């Protein structure tokens, strides 16, 4: 499917599947990007995977990002049957207690990737079966990949 067709199709899911407006952009990226509200994330992802026309069955990259004011997660999805790619972004301004819905019931690979994001960004995922630190020790203080993280001993700041 072309990006225009994808955008058209996904827009038809409002308001049944997705309750609020979606923001589409192709600027500054080689893929079609969707910004989604945290409340709609799981329904949108479920539909993207299970709709036969989209069929995004391969989550090839799940990235935590600290945009400064906001924390968020970027999902790169590809369909192994149609070979189209889409990028879904979800953001929250709540830096104290950022929470999104987990997508590990949709793609099993998300379980490890979400644990990695939790470890380094402190973003929690609802309904995750085993959400605990993956690389760092349980008593580690802070979330190292956040932009405001400081560690005088282990970090060389230029």
């Amino acid at each position, binding site marked *: 499917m072309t990006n225009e067709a994808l955008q058209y199709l996904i827009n038809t899911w409002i308001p049944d599947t997705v309750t609020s407006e979606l923001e589409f952009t192709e600027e500054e990226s080689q893929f079609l990007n969707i910004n989604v509200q945290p409340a709609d994330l799981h329904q949108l992802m479920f539909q993207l995977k299970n709709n036969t026309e989209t069929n995004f069955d391969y989550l090839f990259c799940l990235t935590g990002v600290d945009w400064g004011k906001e924390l968020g997660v*970027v999902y790169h999805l590809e369909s192994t049957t149609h070979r189209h790619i889409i990028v879904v972004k979800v953001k929250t301004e709540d830096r104290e207690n950022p929470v999104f819905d987990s997508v590990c019931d949709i793609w099993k690979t998300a379980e490890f990737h979400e644990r990695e994001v939790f470890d380094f960004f402190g973003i929690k995922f609802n309904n995750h079966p085993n959400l605990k630190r993956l690389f760092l020790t349980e008593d580690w203080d802070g979330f190292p990949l956040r932009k405001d993280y400081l560690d005088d001993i282990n970090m060389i700041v230029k």
Partner: protein
Amino acid sequence: METTTINNNFKSEEYFINMGPQHPATHGVLRLLLTIDGETIKKVEPDLGYIHRSIEKMCERDSYQQIVHLTDRMDYLSSNINNEAVCLAVENALQIEVPERVKVIRTIIGELTRIASHNLWWGVMGMDVGALTTYFYAFRDREMINDIFEETCGARLTMNYNIPGGLMFDIHPNFVKRVKEFITHFKTKLPEYDTLLTNNVIFQKRMRGVGMLSKEDAISYGASGPVGRGSGYSCDVRKLHPYSALDKVTFNEALRTEGDSFARYEVRIQEMWESMAIVEQLIDNIPEGDYQVETNAVIKLPKGEFYQKVETARGELGVYIISTGTKNPYRLKFRSPGFSNLSLLNHIAVGGKIGDLVASMATLDLVIPDIDR
């Protein structure tokens, strides 16, 4: 009578056992928490981070030329392909067209890297299931590739031969001759691998029907590389999103549909043949020209997001750069193939025996620094 009573009252209990972090079969510092009942595995939980260096955080402070160095240290057996991934991402972002000579050399060295990596995997694969001889056969042949690399760029493993805009130096005058010698040599040696290990009945009995992974699960777990292709999932990035000179060569994607450990084994053996075929198609026709194009001393990427996929020896490596227009990336994520492949270990090992876990894990071909980035 007494014995029967004891047997009836005996309750099998689950217990934990640590495998690693210093275990020869984990090929690095990986710790697996095994829940076992007798010798049957109930659960495998990897404990990671023993060699985590936070390369992604370091990238945020480094320039794009410096980042290339760090990628050597992720999957050190595919170091040249990792370098290429970052260079391609930067070149695409800056819209630099590298000379044909660079593309062809990158592809040749990339495929030689893949042969060297699969070669080492084959050696330790045999060793993991108790066949020590394979290790010496594999290292004899792999040594020739390392010597070729050493002559051309000075390093044998962490090559750092690519730079954004091309290659650090031109190939050594002996390069073409020695690569041809290697191909001739390896074509006579690779069939020996089959007689020694592949066709061994004991080996096949340990591999067939063990570590089953269906195609649906392979996709859902984000499997890539030989792990995905052993389950009939056509996922070769070289075919789907060709880069460098890979669109100019013909080769077959190694695919097996069985989904067991032996299928993953066979995929890698076939890939060595295919890689040799790719090298043979290119080695006589390396175009003349420059080996690099001039770039600014300080590389600044335009504002935006850039994603580059390549096929390393382990699968799909993704480089995701978020740039704000400065000389450092704002965020750089490496989607490493080993990380996703490790996540399916629990799935394929549960219900099997500890010995089968070792054999299945060997066919995932894990490189721990690639997982602990």
